[in-house]
């Protein structure tokens, strides 16, 4: 049985803002980044840190460009990630997948915008 939970009006989110709310005992973070909304569990799977209060940033990538050459480092604007402030565990903001392994998956929640308000759907 899913539950639709009101967060707050879209207009009250500045870019990069996040709202932490508790639903049925679960801490959930709703984050606005570059005009898009994301909702993830706020309990880091490492040691229960408040992951959704951590830094949101473009993933740092390094590409192998050939034998003996240094990596070509860049920030990947197509992959936005969030890092838990306690120990640095980092997840894809959209999918919740840990950058190191897809065996670790932070729960994510569906976000709906309706009549100018942000809602999340919690199972």
């Amino acid at each position, binding site marked *: 049985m899913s539950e639709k939970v009101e967060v707050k009006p879209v207009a009250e989110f500045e870019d990069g803002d996040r709202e932490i709310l508790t639903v049925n005992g679960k801490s959930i973070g709703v984050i606005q980044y570059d005009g898009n909304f994301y909702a993830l569990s706020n309990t880091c799977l*490492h040691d229960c840190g408040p992951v959704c209060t951590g830094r949101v940033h473009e*993933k*740092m*990538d*390094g*590409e*192998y460009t050939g*034998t*003996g*050459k*240094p*990596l070509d480092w860049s920030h990947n604007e197509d992959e936005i990630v969030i890092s838990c402030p306690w*120990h*640095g*565990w*980092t997840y894809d903001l959209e999918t919740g997948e*840990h*950058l*190191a*392994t897809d065996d*670790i998956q932070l729960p994510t929640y569906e976000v709906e915008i309706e009549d100018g308000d942000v809602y999340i759907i919690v199972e």
Partner: protein
Amino acid sequence: MSSEHRTNNSSVDSDYTVVDVDAHYLESFENIAEYMDEPWRTRLKESGWGEIGAKQNASSYFPTSTGDRQAYGRIDREHSSYPDEPAEPDEIKASMESIGIDIQLQISHLLLPANAVRSDDQRVTQFMEGYVKYVREHILDPDEGIYGLVPVPFHDVEASLDLLKETEDDEGFIGACMIAAGARPALGNRKYDRIYELGEELDYPFVFHTGGAGLDSYDGFQSFIETHALGFLASNQAQLTSLVMEGIPEKFPELDIIFMESGVTYVPALMTRLDEEYLKRPEENPLLEKLPSDYLKEVYYGTQPLEKSANPEYLETCFNMIGADQIMYASDYPHWDYDRPTTVTDLPFLTEDDKQKILGGNALEVFDL
């Protein structure tokens, strides 16, 4: 440890094919000098270093390591003149038969401290080139199961490529050896990419063998056991960390990597340590496509010196974490802490299939023997 009584000549069942992936023929400096170019030949011969490359005034061809490996005269080898005299070639077969080994890979004994050299590094290249010529002519004998590894003078990439290519058609050389102790920069550095690339092309497995130089010089440590235990272990962990985290298995996926001479229990420790840090800092090593431990499970490990005194349940867990497919018996004969094949056959938790793989099956496959 088992309390079962055994005799000291108990050996392994002849049903096993035993491949020893790490033994050391004690060549002499005078042997190698004959194959070196001038002026290196004269420099070496006229320096008075004699057969062992060192003399009493602490002058030596390669840096020396701490302590007395022979435990103050207590260690003796029936089938080797080590350490007092250079070996005779026929000692190899006698020792193989005595221990119960069918095929053996020889790695230079004198070169083990070579990469602690920080100056005049051409002497290392020259020695390695001379060594290849000497063992090709006098030691390696595929018909008798005696093979060799090409020592890589990795401080000089061009010289490394030349030496590896020079052995390409040689049946006696079946892989390369990176004498890992003292390597600067660490061996995952991109400086060495071309060496690994050529290794892949030549289908040479790469053996990483640490030694008694470089990392075993722990200031203030008093006994040989302290520097030796730490030196070998720390060197292997350091070089494995560099290779894995810098993505060498991703850059060169066909390259077989084999690490020698620190037993097996350090491997699970490194697996868990690296995984724990990588989960906290995954963007620092972007070439990794999986956890560091997954790469470490694809590396091969020589058994010696196997931690026979460990709790069998703990040792079994370590074997399971690495995998019986990744472990290769190594004797390290005639060194002070060598292991016989019975160190493997005695393990209570291994299946017959595991023992067959570890004693020879894995090495036969990897070295294409």
